[in-house]
């Protein structure tokens, strides 16, 4: 039985979009897949050592369920983003969903390989010292070497 492979291209850095790559990768790894995640654009935010700044905005997020309907004029007020982030984190905790840090650690423990897009690291002038250690830096062509052989390839 050959090992199945999965590649994920992670391009988003908000709290809601941070979960799919890590959950899918850790689950696949638990099922025996060989997994690699390519972090590019805002997905790079998920490689920061400190993930506490990963947030979710109530503004222009009409699909996000809210406890009370919130007019756009209220969504844009100072503090609303922090409040939405705090409420989302509380909800995640209450439902027993792992924190981002925990999921990321589980991925690394399960030998999921993290690749950071060198081009967008340079583009946004990110400081590598702010990223976690176990990351390889490369480009799309390099990632296609793995992605081209996968059974599942996802874009988040």
């Amino acid at each position, binding site marked *: 039985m050959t090992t199945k492979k999965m590649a994920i291209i992670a391009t988003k850095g908000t709290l809601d979009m941070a979960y799919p790559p890590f959950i899918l990768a850790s689950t696949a790894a*638990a099922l*025996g897949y060989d997994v690699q995640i390519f972090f590019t654009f805002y997905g790079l935010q998920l490689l920061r050592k400190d993930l506490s700044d990963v947030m979710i905005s109530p503004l222009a997020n009409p699909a996000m369920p809210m406890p009370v309907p919130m007019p756009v004029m209220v969504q844009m007020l100072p503090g609303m983003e922090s409040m939405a982030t705090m409420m989302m984190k509380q909800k995640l905790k209450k439902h027993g*969903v792992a924190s981002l840090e925990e999921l990321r650690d589980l991925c690394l423990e399960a030998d999921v390989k993290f690749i950071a897009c060198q081009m967008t690291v340079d583009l946004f002038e990110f400081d590598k010292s702010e990223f976690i250690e176990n990351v390889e830096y490369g480009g799309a062509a390099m990632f296609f070497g793995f992605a081209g052989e996968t059974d599942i390839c996802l874009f988040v």
Partner: protein
Amino acid sequence: MNFDKELNARGLSCPLPIVKTKKALADMATGQVLKVIATDVGAVKDMQAFADQTGHTLVATAEENGEYIFFMKKK
């Protein structure tokens, strides 16, 4: 049902029950049985899928007081 190790996955949601199951099985020997207790209803299908896809055997399942119990035998 005899088991060699117990994993308390109560209160944990997807993907934690199966990710932790995999981790717990890693330290066990072939043929040993891991008992997993979960409260996430999604774990029922996940554990069967885990067994189907990894080759470990889900020897028995039970439901007691709103908790789901799984006996997973390491391949």
